[in-house]
């Protein structure tokens, strides 16, 4: 009976995290397999319910809006961990560090000398038309020239198991609280597994984040006041904002708590106004300051951009980092790495075609049904089409959209993301996954071992975003010499 748990498991030709091409368990999953086959379905179901209940009681939820009432859901959590051996992780770590270094140099360059444009590496037109490019910030210096303090880079593995960078999230990447809570949940549900595996801990993330934020205080202030700025409790990621503030031991503020006077930012307290030095803001550029960006923003703090430009307050991430998030800019990241660092990229991009380039556009339009099409500035799984799964109408809709706005789209071959066993209705089935590591840049670059493994819970789906029914897994990076003991 117990054996049956994995007996009928099929990799179906995909790269599977747990089993190799011949159906043999990979060595780093051996102990997990043993532990899980010891269990029967009832025990497993009970453990699953236990984890779910813990999430619900703690209010670890996100909000889905449909109709007039937002409902709070817990993010589906799968109990089979994703395990990364040390050598794989070392490669990822070096590749991610390299990439973030290049992106920060790029952002500094774009808002200062624009060498990369003048030397013909990236066309001016691409930058000028990037939706999140902020010419208002040209010439503005930021402490230690750090723009992306927190980066969430999405990685995938293709059919051969090689890691590829899918996108860089350099604005307000979310999800890190799930990573931390998933680990807590796993420890609660499977305490003994951790004694069998040398899993690297993740719980220092909030302290590392705080250190990075303190490091970038204006004027090198050694004892800055740091706060988290949230759009408010109705934001779908509010739990995370509050979680991070709580774990860092700092205030969480909304725009109504802040006021700008004489180009300094203050928060309103019961003891009067208190100066704020660094703001970890989880509000997008567009909504941050109604006097500079969107006038209709109800979430903004009037005057905050001027305080920032004068160097009296620092924002993390910096304003204008969205230009590096643009999927057309993404295409140029390997070139940036060569240009700024004189190094070869350690982690490759997914092959990408730009519909803004005529020859690419011709290819894209002729092969729409075989490609993944993405809008250059959408995220969360919106604004994309997976050609082989699209209907005729969808394909024609995207064709028209690309012809109307070639700058607004890119195309990539369909990557069959790697799969990992997931618990589905009493048995284990393969589901596609990705990985979002979180990289912090302060005095040094810190990468929390692992990241958030996201799962496309729907059978056959390649879309892992939580807004599209995605779930998560705990991600284990094994310590050096990391054979399971």
């Amino acid at each position, binding site marked *: 009976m117990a054996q049956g748990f994995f007996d009928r498991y099929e990799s179906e030709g995909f790269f599977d995290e747990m089993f190799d091409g011949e159906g043999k368990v990979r060595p780093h999953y051996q102990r997990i397999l043993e532990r899980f086959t010891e269990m029967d379905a009832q025990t497993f179901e009970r453990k699953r319910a236990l984890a779910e209940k813990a999430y619900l*009681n703690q*209010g670890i939820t996100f909000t889905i809006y449909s109709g007039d009432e937002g409902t709070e859901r817990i993010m589906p959590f799968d109990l089979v961990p994703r395990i990364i051996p040390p050598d794989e992780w070392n490669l990822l770590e070096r590749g991610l560090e390299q990439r973030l270094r290049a992106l920060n140099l790029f952002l500094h360059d774009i808002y200062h000398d624009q060498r990369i444009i003048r030397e013909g590496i990236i066309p001016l037109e691409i930058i000028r038309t990037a939706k999140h490019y902020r010419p208002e910030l040209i010439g503005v210096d930021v402490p230690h020239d750090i723009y992306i303090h927190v980066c969430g880079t999405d990685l995938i593995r293709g059919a051969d198991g090689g890691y590829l960078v899918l996108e860089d999230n350099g604005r307000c990447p979310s999800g890190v609280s799930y990573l931390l809570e998933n680990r807590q949940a796993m420890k609660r549900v499977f305490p003994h597994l951790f004694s069998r595996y040398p899993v690297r801990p993740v719980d220092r993330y909030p302290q590392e984040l705080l250190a990075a934020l303190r490091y970038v205080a204006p004027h090198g202030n050694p004892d800055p006041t740091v706060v988290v700025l949230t759009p408010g*409790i109705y934001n779908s990621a509010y739990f995370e904002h*509050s*979680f991070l503030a709580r774990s860092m031991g700092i*205030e969480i503020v909304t725009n*109504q*708590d802040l006021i700008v006077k004489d180009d300094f930012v203050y928060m*309103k307290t*019961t003891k009067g106004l208190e100066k704020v030095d660094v703001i970890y803001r989880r509000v997008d550029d567009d909504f941050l300051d109604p006097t500079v960006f969107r006038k209709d923003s109800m979430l903004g703090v009037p005057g905050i951009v001027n305080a920032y430009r004068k160097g009296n307050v620092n924002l993390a991430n910096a304003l204008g980092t969205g230009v590096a998030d643009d999927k057309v800019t993404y295409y140029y990241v390997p070139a940036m790495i060569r240009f700024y660092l004189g190094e070869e990229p350690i982690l490759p991009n997914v092959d990408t075609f730009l519909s803004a380039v005529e020859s690419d556009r011709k290819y894209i339009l002729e092969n729409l049904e075989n490609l993944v099409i993405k809008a250059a500035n959408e995220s969360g799984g919106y604004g994309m089409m997976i050609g082989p799964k699209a209907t005729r109408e969808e394909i024609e809709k995207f064709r028209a959209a690309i012809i109307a706005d070639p700058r607004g789209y890119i195309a990539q071959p369909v990557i069959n993301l790697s799969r990992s066993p997931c618990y589905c209705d009493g048995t284990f089935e393969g589901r596609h996954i990705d990985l979002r590591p979180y990289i912090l840049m302060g005095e040094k670059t810190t990468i929390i071992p692992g990241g958030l493994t996201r799962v496309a819970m729907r059978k056959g789906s390649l879309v892992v975003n939580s807004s599209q029914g995605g779930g998560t897994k705990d991600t284990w990076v094994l310590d050096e010499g990391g054979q399971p003991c």
Partner: protein
Amino acid sequence: MLSRVADSCFWLSRYLERAETNSRILDVNIQIALDFEENNDAKVRQQWMPILSTAKEQELFRQIHGEVTSEAIMDFVTFEKTNANSILSSMTLARENARTVREQISSEMWEQINRLYLYLQSPAARTAFRESPIGFFRLLVDNLHSFQGITDATMTHGEGWQFIQAGKYIERADSTSRVLDFKYHLLLPSGEQVGGNVDITQWMAVLRSCSAMEAYFKISHGHVTSWQVAEFLILHDTFPRSIRFCVDALDQALHSISGVDRGHFSNEAERLSGALRSNLAFTTVDSIFRFGLHQYLDQSQERLNEISNALAETYFRWT
């Protein structure tokens, strides 16, 4: 502390206390109803309608239910979402406020509120309510008491905690005065005398709804009279639900927040609470009855309201 955070601590505490008050009143009213079995429509109306304290609530109730039955009133006061004062509404607001200050209160406090809220929303709560309303309301009160214990045991007794105390005591003082006033509106059936059986049962119910019965009997030697009960619930100096005790604790919290000693005031809220506190310390139940019990309670509620507004003006409002 952020003004908004202080504001939320204050209100989450008030809403929880309000939910507790409603649970207590319903519990007690069920018990009175069980004491007087012969239930005709007029009796039911007479006993249950005063629970709806404002004309607005009564109007809303009539729109939703039409007929007055004890079940309808209990449902309206417990689960009705459109009734801003229902237990469910109070718990929802308490939770909303707690959600905005999650990082300021302890995880244990948040989980207690969240659990209770989720329970109230669940079919299990409806079932428990139908099967044994008394058991159901006891469970709510127990859980709300647990919250008080968790708060004292897990949260730093700093500014946020003081705002929680201020919210709790101002709401509780208000609630005790309302319960007393509720008895005032509860008319005696014709033929019944003041001091007669029904009257005494009603006064005992008032005591019970304030968890005051045992404490009261320790000092009253078995006598239940209106003025003694009123004296106990208004003027007793150490019973934790008496108005005097609550105002004293409120005044203490306000001074802990400002750091000013209790002989002085540094803002309007402190001045008003100090004035009310000394009035309660130096008045007698005779003079309250001469003034009129209902008038006195009404005036107290008015003064508590002024303190609440002054507190908001001092600490929460920035323009």
